[in-house]
C-alpha cells in the first residue's frame, strides 16, 4: 500500500517535472517564433526560467488580504488539476497521472476553476483594471466553453466514454482512426475553442497590456507573479496534451522516450497553430470574440453532436 | 470693416488693425469687452473661441487679454484685445458664452493671477499643483532665481553660444568660411 502510494507520488513528480520544463521551453520557443515573424531575434529560449527566478527573488511584496494570497494558489491548483487528470502518454504508468473513468468532466471543470479563483484574488487587489480583465476573461471563457463542450460531447458520444484513456485507446492503429479524421467537425470546433482558451491573439483582450495593464494579474507581483507564470506554463502544457488526446490520437509507443517525442511533436504543432493564428490576426474586442465563438465554432460543434446522435 | 464700424457706435472700441485680409485686431475697453464679444458671437457669426490668452506688458504696467474669435461663414478671425492694469487684476468671465472659456480662465488665473469671478473651477489646479509663489508667467517672476533656490542646480554647468562654440571646437579650420 505504502509503496504503491510512494511510487505513484514519484511518478507524479516525474510527470510534473517533464511537463513544467517542456512547457517553459515551449513558451520560450514560441516567443522566439513570434519574434522571427516580426523580424526580430527575440528573447532567449530560457527566458521564462529567468523571469520566474527573478520574480521569486524579489525582496519585497505587498499583500491585499487572504484572497489575494489564494488567487494565485487557486490558479495554480487549476493548472495542476487540469494536468494531473490527463493521461499524458497512453499505456505508460509513469505518465498516466490520476486518470480515471470520468476524467474529461473533471478536466473541463478545472479549466474553469483557475479563472474563478483568480477572479476572487484579483478582486481583492482593489485595482480597477483587475476586475475588468477578469470580467472579459470570464465572458470570453463562457463563450468558448460552448463549442469546446459540444466537441467533447461529440467525442464522448462517438466512443461512448468520458474517460480520456478510452478515447485515446479507441484512436490507436493509425492516423485514420484519429478523431480529427473520424469526426472532423468536433475537431474543428474544439480547435477553434482552443484558440480562445490559449489567450493568444486574436483572443488576447483579457490581458491586453495597452488598455488594461496586463488584466487580472495587474496587482500581482514578486512571487505571486512567479506562481502565475509557473501555472501559465503548466496550464498551457496540460491543455495541449488534452487536445492531443482528444483529437489527435494521443501519444502511444512501447518505448517511453519515443512516446514522449511523439507527444512533444504533436503538442508543438498544436501550439504552433495557435501562434500562427496569433501572429496573423489582430486582436478581437470582447464582444467580437464572443460573437465569433457563438457563431461558426458552435455550429460546427452542433453538427458534430447531431452527426453522432443520428 | 463693417462689424467694427457698427460696434464702435455702441461700444468703446478703437485701434482697428488689419493683420491680414482674414485677420483683424481691435482694442476694447474693459467695461465693454464682454458686451462686444457677445455681439460678435450672437450678431456677427463669430461663434468659435479660438483661444483666449494674456500678454504681460511689464513696461506699460498692463496685461493685454486677447480673445481670438472665428467666423465660419466668412472664414475670418477677429482678435479683441483688452488692456487692464497689472495691479489687482479682475476681468468679467465669459464662460456663459463659451463653456470652454472656463478652462482658459482657470489656466490664466494660475499662470498670471487674473481673477475671473464666477468662472467654474477657477481655483482648481490646472498645470501647477500647490503653487505658493507669485504666478510664474508674470514677467516680474524670476524663474532662474526660483529654480536655483528650489531645485538643487548641479554645479559645473556652463552655457555657450552654440554658434561660437561649434566654430571654435567642432570645425576650427572651417570657421573663417562661415
Amino acid at each position, binding site marked *: 500500500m505504502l509503496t504503491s502510494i510512494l511510487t505513484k507520488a514519484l511518478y507524479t513528480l516525474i510527470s510534473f517535472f517533464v511537463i513544467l520544463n517542456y512547457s517553459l521551453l515551449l513558451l520560450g520557443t514560441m516567443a522566439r517564433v513570434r519574434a522571427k515573424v516580426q523580424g526580430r531575434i527575440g528573447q532567449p529560449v530560457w*527566458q521564462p526560467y529567468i523571469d520566474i527566478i527573478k520574480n521569486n527573488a524579489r525582496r519585497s511584496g505587498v499583500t491585499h488580504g487572504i484572497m489575494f494570497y489564494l488567487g494565485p494558489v487557486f490558479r495554480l491548483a487549476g493548472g495542476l488539476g487540469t494536468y494531473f487528470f490527463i493521461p499524458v502518454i497512453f499505456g505508460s504508468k509513469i505518465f498516466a497521472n490520476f486518470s480515471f473513468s470520468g476524467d474529461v468532466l473533471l478536466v473541463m471543470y478545472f479549466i474553469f476553476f483557475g479563472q474563478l479563483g483568480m477572479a476572487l484574488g484579483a478582486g481583492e487587489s482593489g485595482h480597477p483594471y483587475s476586475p475588468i480583465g477578469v470580467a472579459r476573461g470570464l465572458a470570453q471563457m463562457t463563450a468558448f466553453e460552448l463549442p469546446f463542450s459540444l466537441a467533447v460531447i461529440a467525442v464522448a458520444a462517438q466512443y461512448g466514454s468520458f474517460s480520456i484513456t478510452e478515447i485515446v485507446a479507441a484512436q490507436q492503429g493509425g492516423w485514420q482512426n484519429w478523431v480529427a479524421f473520424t469526426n472532423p467537425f468536433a475537431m474543428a470546433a474544439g480547435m477553434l475553442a482552443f484558440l480562445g482558451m490559449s489567450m493568444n491573439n486574436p483572443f488576447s483582450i483579457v490581458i491586453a497590456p495597452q488598455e488594461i495593464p496586463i488584466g487580472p494579474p495587474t496587482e500581482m507581483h514578486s512571487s505571486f507573479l512567479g506562481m502565475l507564470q509557473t501555472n501559465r506554463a503548466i496550464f498551457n502544457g496540460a491543455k495541449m496534451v488534452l487536445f492531443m488526446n482528444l483529437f489527435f490520437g494521443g501519444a502511444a509507443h512501447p518505448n517511453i522516450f519515443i512516446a514522449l517525442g511523439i507527444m512533444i511533436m504533436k503538442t508543438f504543432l498544436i501550439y504552433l497553430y495557435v501562434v500562427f493564428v496569433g501572429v496573423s490576426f489582430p486582436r478581437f474586442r470582447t464582444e467580437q470574440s464572443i460573437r465569433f465563438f457563438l457563431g461558426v465554432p458552435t455550429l460546427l460543434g452542433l453538427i458534430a453532436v447531431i452527426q453522432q446522435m443520428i | 470693416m463693417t462689424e467694427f464700424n457698427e460696434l464702435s457706435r455702441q461700444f468703446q472700441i478703437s485701434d482697428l488693425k488689419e493683420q491680414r485680409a482674414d485677420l483683424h485686431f481691435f482694442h476694447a475697453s474693459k467695461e465693454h469687452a464682454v458686451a462686444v464679444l457677445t455681439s460678435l458671437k450672437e450678431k456677427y457669426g463669430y461663434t468659435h473661441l479660438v483661444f483666449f490668452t494674456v500678454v504681460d506688458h511689464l513696461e506699460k504696467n498692463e496685461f493685454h487679454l486677447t480673445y481670438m474669435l472665428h467666423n465660419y461663414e466668412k472664414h475670418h478671425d477677429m482678435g479683441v484685445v483688452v488692456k487692464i492694469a497689472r495691479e489687482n487684476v479682475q476681468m468679467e468671465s465669459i464662460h456663459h458664452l463659451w463653456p470652454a472659456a472656463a478652462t482658459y480662465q482657470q489656466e490664466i488665473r494660475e499662470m498670471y493671477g487674473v481673477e475671473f469671478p464666477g468662472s467654474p473651477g477657477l481655483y482648481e489646479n490646472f498645470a501647477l499643483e500647490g503653487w505658493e509663489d507669485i504666478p510664474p508667467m508674470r514677467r516680474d517672476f524670476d524663474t532662474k532665481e526660483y529654480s536655483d533656490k528650489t531645485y*538643487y542646480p548641479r554645479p559645473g554647468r556652463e552655457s555657450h553660444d552654440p554658434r561660437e562654440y561649434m566654430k571654435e571646437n567642432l570645425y576650427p579650420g572651417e570657421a573663417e568660411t562661415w
Partner: protein
Amino acid sequence: MSDNMNDMDQIQLFNDQGRLLNAGLPDEEKALFCDAAPQVDAPYRGIWEKFLNWARSESLWILGFGTGCGAIELRPLMTSRYDMYQYGVQPRPTPRQAGLFIIGGYASVKTMKRIVRSYEQMQGPKFVLGLGSCTVNGGMYWDSYNTINRLDHYIPVDVYIAGCMPRPEALLAGINELKKLIKEGKGENANKYAENFEWYKRNQKKIIKDWNMPDYNW
C-alpha cells in the same frame, strides 16, 4: 543653502513611535494606508546572491515613465531594429511587476509626484535609469520654474544617459551598463532609498507642496 536646511527641518515625518505621520491625508483615510517606512532588505551572501543578481540583470522589466520627450525613444526599442527582448528586457505596464524605472526626460513637479508614487510602488530590488540631460542637470529646462534639475535628489538613480534626446542605441548601452552594475552587486539602490528615506522624503516634500498621498506609497 542654509535657509533651505531650516525649511527642511520643519517638515516632520515620523511620530513618537517611529511611524509615518501621513500628514497629507485626510483623517478618515489615514487608516486605509500603511504608515511604515521602507525597510532595508539585506541581500543574500555569496554565490546564491550572484546567481540571483544574474537572473535580475537578465530579466529587466521596464516601467516607462513617458511624460518627457524620452517616451518616443522607448517605443523603437521594441521594434525589430533594436529588439530589446534579446537582452531580456520587456515592457511592463504596471509598477508592481516592473523592476526598471525609466524616466523619459524632464520631470515637472507635477510628474515628480507621480514618479515618486510609482517608484515606491515598485518592489525591490528596483533600478532607475535617467534618460536624457533633463534628468542629469535639468537640460534645456534648467532654469524653468516647474522642472526639477537633479533627479537623484528625489529618487536614487542607477544609470544616467546624457543626451537630448539619446537615441535608442544609447538607451540599450545604458541598459547593458546597468546589467553590469547589477551583476557586480551594485544594484542596491532600493536599500539606499530606505536608508536615506528621510533625506529623500524632505527633498520631495520641499517641491511637492500639496502632498495629498501617503508618505510612503506601498
